[in-house]
């Protein structure tokens, strides 16, 4: 039975928000009603009622949306699928079926324990399949196995036709292939409510992995040295990192403000066969940084950064390498952190850092002005299997040439700090993408020869101020016009919309 939580219900204040407590921005902005559904039928029924009432439905699975696309819904209704979280196998077709409310941690545990399989999805336990997979979904195994959306072979989705009738569809490469393609990475909240992701096959879960972290003290870090570290990191992914034997390597360079004491590189590796019998690729990568004499553990007094990965490292072993069962490395530490106020931005990079870019980042992150602003850049390795040819045509993810993906993050607690953090993030990000390394018409944004735009799962409404924002998220090769056609066809009344949804 669908659970309806209306204003006045003791649960309302908790459930009106997702993970990002910035939204809803005020009581007026909050939805009027939250409908918690535990099955596809309940979801269809709830959707019917919301449409008939003339309300705007927003859809929530894991609640980890970066912007207010779900929680800012004045007078509308949130259709919440977090109670619909099964991970099953279709007895007839043999397909693996992931319900949208399943959180990634549960998906990993179920797929692994039942079938020794996995998804190359994200690293946060509590992120929901519904939004994550709709937007592409990438993680530590993506260089090895591609994006989660690359593995989808069918989607169950509820659309609303022109008359307002709710239509349950099973779409795949033969049935409504255009809608199917759009569901493979264009981002959630665009075309309908996905009630199941279907996978004919899935990659085998690695047996074990090795982890290592390298820490670079900010004290005595010169701009020249910082630039060399960033370029060494980037050069690897632009060069050697393209070789398939390295695709089991994932690495994250996390730049935190100088006041944190250190920044670091956190890495995980397994061979393409899912073992760590030979870690020479890993050693080869780590050894690139020997010249900087990094530390492999942090002094006990050092503040902990907001690392997104469960990369446990060990002092004593060479380069601090620690071997772990893959499942433990993936879900062992749970995580993701509780709800907080946050802002995020993203950038895909096709090439390594330029000295100018590294210098700007250095200046920003060593500037006393930015000390208290809590901003962090996660520079993730990318590419490998993600960039296999053909995927760009079959899916709705345009970025298939990048070798790194950057996530800019900032966290804080108090509402009265919102404007300061939002302004600072915007300034820092814009500064990094301004200069001769960005083409003249796209100053302030990661676009041009060196960049491939932004990631829809790291939605950032600041980008709306650029008239070409759809290009940043969907590229220039016709994907956005294609998505607009799909939108017109399957959601002609634009029932599913947000400030960044595909627009007519």
């Amino acid at each position, binding site marked *: 039975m669908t659970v309806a939580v209306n204003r006045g219900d003791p649960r309302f204040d908790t459930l009106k928000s997702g993970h990002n407590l910035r939204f809803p921005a005020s009581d007026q902005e909050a939805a009027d009603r939250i409908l918690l559904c535990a099955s596809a039928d309940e979801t269809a029924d709830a959707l019917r009622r919301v449409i008939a009432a*003339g309300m705007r439905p927003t859809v929530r699975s894991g609640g980890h949306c970066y912007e207010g696309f779900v929680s800012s819904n004045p*007078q*509308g209704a949130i259709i919440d699928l977090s109670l619909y979280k099964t991970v099953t196998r279709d007895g007839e077709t043999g397909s693996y079926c992931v319900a949208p409310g399943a959180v990634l941690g549960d998906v990993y545990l179920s797929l692994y324990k039942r079938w020794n399989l996995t998804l190359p999805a994200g690293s946060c336990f509590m992120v929901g399949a519904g939004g994550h997979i709709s937007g592409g979904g990438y993680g530590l195994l993506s260089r090895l196995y591609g994006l989660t959306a690359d593995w989808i072979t069918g989607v169950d989705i509820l659309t*609303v036709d*022109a008359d307002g009738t709710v239509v349950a569809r099973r779409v795949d490469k033969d049935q409504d292939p255009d809608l199917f393609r759009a569901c493979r990475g264009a981002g959630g909240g665009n075309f309908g409510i996905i009630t199941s992701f279907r996978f004919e096959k899935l990659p085998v879960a690695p047996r074990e992995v090795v982890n290592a972290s390298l820490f670079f003290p900010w004290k005595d870090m010169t701009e020249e040295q910082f630039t060399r570290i960033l370029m060494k990191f980037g050069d690897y992914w632009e060069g050697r990192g393209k070789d398939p034997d390295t695709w089991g390597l994932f690495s994250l360079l996390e730049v935190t403000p100088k006041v944190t004491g250190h920044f670091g590189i956190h890495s995980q590796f397994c061979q393409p066969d899912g073992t760590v019998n030979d870690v020479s690729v890993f050693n080869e990568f780590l050894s690139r940084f020997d010249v900087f004499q990094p530390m492999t553990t942090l002094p006990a007094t050092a503040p902990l950064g907001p690392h997104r990965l469960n990369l446990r490292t060990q002092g004593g072993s060479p380069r601090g390498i620690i071997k772990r069962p893959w499942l433990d490395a993936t879900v062992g530490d749970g995580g993701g952190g509780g709800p907080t106020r946050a802002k995020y931005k993203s950038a895909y990079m096709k090439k390594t850092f330029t000295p100018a870019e590294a210098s700007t980042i250095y200046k920003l992150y060593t500037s006393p002005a930015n000390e208290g602003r809590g901003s962090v850049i996660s520079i993730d390795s990318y590419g490998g299997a993600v960039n296999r040819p053909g995927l760009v045509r079959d899916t709705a993810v345009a970025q298939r040439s990048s070798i790194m993906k950057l996530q800019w993050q900032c966290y804080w607690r108090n509402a009265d700090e919102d404007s300061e953090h939002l302004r600072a993030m915007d300034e820092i990000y814009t500064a990094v993408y301004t200069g001769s390394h960005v083409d003249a018409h796209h100053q302030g944004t990661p676009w041009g020869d060196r960049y491939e735009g932004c990631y829809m799962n790291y939605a950032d409404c600041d980008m709306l101020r650029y008239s070409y924002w759809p290009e940043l998220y969907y590229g220039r090769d016709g994907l956005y016009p294609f998505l607009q056609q799909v939108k017109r066809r399957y959601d002609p009344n634009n029932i599913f919309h947000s*400030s960044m949804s595909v627009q007519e």
Partner: protein
Amino acid sequence: MRLRDRLRTSGAVRGFGAPPTRRTFLAMLGSAGAVRLVPQPHGLVPSGAEARPTLLCVGALTGGGSGAIHTLAVQGGRCEPLGSIPSEQPLALASHPARPIIYAANSVNRYRHEPRGTVEAVLVDQRTGQLERVACQPLSLSATYPRSLAVSPDGRSLLVAAFGGGAYNILPLDESGVPGAPSAILKQVGRGAHFPDQGSAHPASVVFVRQHLMGIAADFGADRLDLLSPDPNAPRKFTIVNRIACRPGSGPCALALHREGGLLVAAQRLRPALTIFRLVPPAHLEQSGEIPLPSTPAAITWCPQQEILYTVLTERSCLSHLHVWQLDPAAGTLRRIAEAALPAADIRAIHAGPAALYLASERGLITVNLDHTSRTPLLTTGLSAAVRGAVSLAAVTRA
């Protein structure tokens, strides 16, 4: 006092004489029944019957995605430009029943980079005609390209039809007439027979029924009329209380509510026709007639004092036709009593003053003087080119 009330008590209303036949009307107009435009920088045409001047607000598109709102003093067919402020795309205007404020439906699809239309509130100095923008209120997310708006008779709510986003918004108006964030958002679904024009819901025109505080809206995309009433427990929250289906593929695009509120005429764009409905309280419409039209209706309005309806029909050529209809209130039917060709094909709005009709057109404001007795057009017309790109009209009483 509302403009129409003022006009009613102003002595401007004359008795309704016998309507001329089409032949006598054409004779009045001269050869071919065409109305000749007389360029009039200051709009000087023979004085009409209006005892007190009216301020006519004219929304205009000035090109390049921008627009303006102008005020003109109009009296007896004269019009004198007074004030002007920039606006975005003021595709429709409506005036407050008690305050010198007009509202412009800004037919845009972006507000601070988000997909929203907006409504502007503009204060009109009743003495000088100067304009001051007092608010720009964004509509709900995805309520884009608003095309029509109407103020409730109690002056407390503004009903907006978002054509692009397929939604109605109700904006609460405060004591001074300033709109707030939508207090009701009603997302519509539906389609008509003509794809792609009717591929989804497109609310196009809204009016308020004075006696019942009820809004009526024409949904061009879904071929229907929607009746909206306030929620008894939350007066600023409106809900749709009834829907009246129009003929499939008809595309209702404009509404005109007879001053007594009992009769509604809906102009259909896709199968050109006028459909006449009687309002059956509390919230029903009963069709009492339908008149096919030879071409597409572009604008429609009642004569404020009498049982006369004016429609402008657009031809494919560069002409429009003004049709004058007489209402038979008992039968709820209309009879065409006069017709005239207008030398413009792009007329977007019409306002009927007691002595003249004002037509918003690309070339400017066209004034068509009316015969005092019959309320049918006279030969003399004027063009005020000061308001080029005119698309919308609303009147405010002049102090």
